């Protein structure tokens, strides 16, 4: 679960990390009223999960109520433009009206989990405001890292060493260890996957303030944090996740693409390999789908309908390795599911192997389906069917 800026900043505020004064507004009138009541120089920022708001013209200045009204209208009038990660863009449902800071310097600070070290890593760079990956490419030496011993947690010397290692401007040095500590507390308390302040601003009057906030929570830890339920409601899952949830598969287990070869496999690794096999065979994938273990008729039906109703699949390649899941059970599930479903029908390519493979194939054959022998063969056949459809 990724938080929007205003939510992240609310967590920052609670943790004692300095953030600019601001008001979250869901329409232009509220923004205008707020600015009318609080004269000054404000910046209006679209509240979306996608990056690249500035380039997309979704961050604008306002010094009067009229300006606040008009820029908010402008910002909310169109969704964020699409990118590869979000092919449909993202609608803008609210803005954050925020104090315009007199920024002298911008730095970067983030905490995430480091897989190789199996530890939380605190990362700091004196290049703030730009994408950290860009920094990593252009100024790799500017990034200072500390891998935190979870037995000990954060201690202020870490912040001092990082500020010095990243050669942060001297203006940061006094406040930084406390801010990094508060960020670590937040990271730890909420079981976050990522907390990021980018930019961490140094103002002309010497204050250190979190000018943006990015927080990625761990879905697996949300059961401990009922306080996020309300935010979860205003943070709708993306469309694929919503569809997956409705179909009763895990939200990570379904993802759509532009192609016409529908796929389904049991197990995430095999499902990814199935996509790759289709691609290897020259086809275009319609989706990723892990049906999971068990594969009851109901689950198979839900998955079938998910792909039929929501992708451009012209063929459906089902790739099952019977490990724990028995081949006969899966075969029965497929046969029953296809009988029950009201969804459109496309040609099926079924590959079924492993435990009870013979029994499974017999069941499919009795229902008029001829399974293929291997994953590669299935992929080739599916691609061929799709290209002729």
């Amino acid at each position, binding site marked *: 679960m990724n938080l929007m800026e205003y939510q992240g900043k609310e967590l920052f505020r609670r943790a004692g990390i300095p953030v600019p004064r601001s008001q979250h507004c869901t329409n232009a009138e509220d923004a205008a009223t707020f600015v009318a009541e609080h004269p000054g120089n404000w910046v209006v920022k679209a509240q979306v999960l996608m990056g690249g708001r500035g380039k997309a013209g979704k961050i604008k200045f306002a010094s009067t109520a009229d300006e606040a009204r008009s820029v908010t209208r402008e910002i909310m009038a169109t969704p964020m433009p699409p990118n*590869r*990660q979000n092919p449909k863009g993202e609608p803008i449902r609210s803005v954050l009206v925020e104090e315009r800071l007199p920024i002298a310097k911008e730095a970067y600070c983030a905490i995430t*989990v480091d*897989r*190789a070290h*199996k*530890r*939380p890593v605190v990362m700091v760079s004196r290049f703030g405001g730009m*994408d950290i*990956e860009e920094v990593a*490419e252009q100024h790799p030496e500017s990034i200072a890292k500390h891998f935190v*011993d*979870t*037995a000990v947690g954060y201690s202020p010397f870490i912040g001092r060493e990082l500020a010095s290692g990243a050669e942060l401007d001297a203006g940061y040095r006094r406040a930084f260890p406390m801010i990094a500590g508060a960020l670590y507390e937040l990271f*730890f308390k909420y*079981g976050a*996957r990522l907390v990021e302040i980018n930019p961490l601003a140094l103002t002309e009057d010497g204050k250190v303030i979190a000018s943006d906030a990015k927080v990625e929570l*761990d*879905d*697996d*830890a949300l*059961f*401990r944090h009922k306080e996020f339920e309300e935010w979860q409601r205003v943070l709708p899952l993306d469309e*694929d996740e919503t569809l997956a949830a409705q179909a009763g598969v*895990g939200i*990570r*287990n379904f*993802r759509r*693409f532009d192609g016409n070869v529908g796929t389904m*496999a*049991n*197990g*995430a*690794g*095999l*499902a*990814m*390999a199935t*996509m*790759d*096999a289709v*691609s*290897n065979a020259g086809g275009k*994938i319609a989706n*990723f789908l*892990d049906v999971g273990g068990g594969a009851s008729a109901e689950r198979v039906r839900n998955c079938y309908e998910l792909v039929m109703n929501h992708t451009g699949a012209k063929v459906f390649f089902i790739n099952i*390795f*019977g*490990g*724990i899941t028995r081949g006969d059970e899966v075969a029965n599930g497929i046969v029953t599911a296809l009988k029950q479903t009201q969804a459109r029908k496309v040609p099926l390519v079924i590959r079924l*192997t*492993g*435990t009870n493979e013979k029994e499974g194939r017999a069941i499919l054959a009795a229902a008029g389906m001829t399974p293929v022998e*291997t*994953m*590669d063969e299935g992929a080739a056949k599916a691609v061929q069917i799709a290209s002729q459809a």
Partner: protein
Amino acid sequence: MSIFLDQNSKVIVQGITGREGSYHTGRMLAYGTQIVGGVTPGKGGQKSEHGLPVFDSVKEAVDATGATHNVIFVPAPFAADALYESHEAGISLAICITEGVPVHDTLKVVGTTSGMRIIGPNCPGLISPGKASVGIMPGHVFKQGHVGLISRSGTLTYEVVDGLTRAGLGQSTCVGIGGDPIIGTTYVDVLREFANDSQTKALVICGEIGGSDEEEAAAWIGEHLAGIPVVAFISGRNAPPGKSLGHAGAIVSGSFGTAQSKIEAFQAVGVRVAERPSEIPKLLLAH
């Protein structure tokens, strides 16, 4: 020899009276694994479905049975507790099958249980074919032999192993290290063990997108495993950035964690990378 597990390893099952724990206990016993008991708090003194003694705590189970291995089937919110309990009880190898363990739980457990090896969480377990299987792998696919295998996923492993077995290439030990971002035992940790295992004469690595574990493995192989044939396969080449595919750890962030980066890392140290799982036996035999 095989690594981590053999016919002499004494294993207890944490969560033995649960649905999953009970079912897989039966399968592990059927494979010949020395399952010596199980743990379910509050049910100490009872017998499990398969007639094994049930204990209230890991400590009691260890004291009574001499178990060194513990396989964990408890629900995600209790997995960390199960691992701490295993550590305190002196377990030397804990296999955590549980999926959905909060990443901070794993971080902290892994950082504070030195002396105990953890495999997983969110893994299918491990198997030394012909000797013992711990976890949920379908034993009949495997065959004893000389190929060591390490994988981040379950069914893909079975797919690959099936191909190996059909090609006559048996396995020494197959380790499912798990699909989570933080795991107790990484490729490199397993490679270290295989490097010292006389039974293992070739290696297969089943990787996937996300993180840089495969890159680290490649670097280690380049430095330490010059003589041994290694074949790798990476799934998820068609994954979009920023979205997890199935596994929490299978996520490409910008230019990090891509299949391309992993494939190049392996190729740079002479590891052959299969385009598809079915190529793996051929590439191994070609060495």
